[in-house]
Each structure stands twice: as structure tokens, then as C-alpha cells.
């Protein structure tokens, strides 16, 4: 009985971890605006966690710069296993205008499989919310597959 309750509670409270890998700050500002009262993503149960060890969903923004590459790999390794990687904006998906630069080692698919990608440069807060809702659905499926 309690197991079912816990399961439902886990489904309704996905914790986010925001990872900036050399982003231009556009996507980061849009992600912060998602938790403001106007859009209020907390009604879906999202919460921005301070530690990757507490997170279920990792939101990556920015092309992976060579400075942040090692940190990205280490941070992703610390996240407990049913995890969903969300790419925010165009940069993690394809490096955007930075592709081919000497200090950019993206895209993100090289290091981790992307589950949901939110396109836009930067995406609107509504689009981010819709993407996170999709991420929660994938997280549910992954939890069921693990049992």
C-alpha cells in the first residue's frame, strides 16, 4: 500500500538539476522564468534541486565547451539511475553557431543520450514547460522498466 503511495509521490515530484555547459545565459534566464509565479512550473511538481544526487531530470543548456566537458561527464555520472536528460535550446543538440569552434566539444549526444530536446533559441517558457511534462512521462516509463 505504501509502495503505491510512494510511487505516485515520486511521479508527481520530479526534481530538476540545471547544468550550464557554456550557455550564453539566454536559456538559463528562460528556465528561471518557468518557476516564477506567472508560469509556475511547481504546480506540475518540478523543483530545482541544488545537487545532482537529488535530481531526476537534468536540463542541459549550452554547447559543451572543453572547460565544462569533464564537469558534465562527472555530474551526469552522479545522477541516480532513472534519469532523463533534457537538452534546452539549440546548443546542446547541435552546438548551434558555435559548431566547429576550437573550444567546443559538443553536441551532447556524444556523452549522453538525449531523451527530450526543446528547440528554440531560446525556447519560450511555455515550450520549456511542455518539454518538462514530456520528460516526466519518459521518467515514468523508465521507472516501470527498471522494476
Amino acid at each position, binding site marked *: 500500500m505504501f509502495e503505491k503511495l510512494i510511487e505516485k509521490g515520486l511521479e508527481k515530484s520530479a526534481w530538476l538539476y540545471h547544468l550550464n555547459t557554456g550557455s550564453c545565459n539566454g536559456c538559463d534566464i528562460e528556465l528561471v522564468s518557468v518557476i516564477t*509565479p506567472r508560469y509556475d512550473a511547481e504546480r506540475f511538481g518540478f523543483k530545482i534541486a541544488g545537487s545532482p544526487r537529488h535530481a531526476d531530470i537534468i536540463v542541459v543548456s549550452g554547447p559543451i565547451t572543453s572547460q565544462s566537458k569533464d564537469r558534465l561527464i562527472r555530474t551526469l555520472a552522479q545522477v541516480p539511475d532513472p534519469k532523463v536528460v533534457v537538452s534546452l535550446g539549440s546548443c546542446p*543538440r547541435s552546438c548551434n553557431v558555435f559548431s566547429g569552434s576550437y573550444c567546443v566539444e559538443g553536441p551532447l549526444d556524444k556523452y549522453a543520450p538525449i531523451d527530450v530536446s526543446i528547440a*528554440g533559441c531560446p*525556447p519560450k517558457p511555455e515550450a520549456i514547460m511542455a518539454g518538462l511534462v514530456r520528460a516526466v512521462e519518459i521518467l515514468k516509463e523508465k521507472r516501470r522498466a527498471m522494476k
Partner: protein
Amino acid sequence: MKFPYLKEAVKSLFSKPSTENFPKEVKEAPEGYRGKIAFYPEKCVNCGMCIRVCAPGAITRTIEKVEEGDKITFQFYMGQCTFCQLCQDFCARKAIELTKDYLMIAEDEEELMVRGTFIKKHHLNHLYHLQSQLLLL
């Protein structure tokens, strides 16, 4: 005694919440918003200006030879686009348009592709030349 925010407090007791009811009411983007690209292949003349002007290189073109002419496919990859609208501004035939559609959520690359195919006939010019000669006769 002063209650500095009393008026505001009473007002907000009877007003609607400021939170937007997002998944139920999807708001339209404002005028001039640059969202997902729409491509009209019937208007395109294959000048390639959009490819030259695109900073991230999100536009690619493949040309296949078929019987009637060249089968040309334009691909716009929304996962690499900066939504700067330069391709729309430089398109002489207005074949590219940035729509107000902003909900671009995908699980794989294929969902973020916008494609358009058309056939450019190569002996059209030749036919025109023949016709003008006939008219002269």
C-alpha cells in the same frame, strides 16, 4: 496607523490568479515572433541565398538527378537554428516564413526537421528558346 498594502491585499483577494493556465489555454505568440520555419517548395527557385546567409548552417540542400530535371530537397534543422530570420529576409521569392509556432518538443532529430522537395526542370529554358524562334518565323 498605516496599512501600506491594504488596498493591494483586498484587490488581490477578488482578482484572478496571475499564473497562466498553460496546458489548458495555449497562448498565441506575439506579432512578429520568430518560431518554427515553414518552407513553401513551390515558390523556391533554388538560388541558395538562405544557405549562404545562415550563420549556424542549419539549412542543407540535396540535389538528385531525375528524368525531368533536378529533384531538390531543402532541409531546415530546427535543432540548429538561431531563429534570426535572415533566411526569410533574404529570400527573394518569399518561400521561407518563420511562423508563430513555438512548441517544438522532440525526442529524436527527425521531428525537428522541416523539409521541402521540388523538381527544377532543366530543359525549360531550351523550350522557351524554341518557342521564340517559332514566333519569329
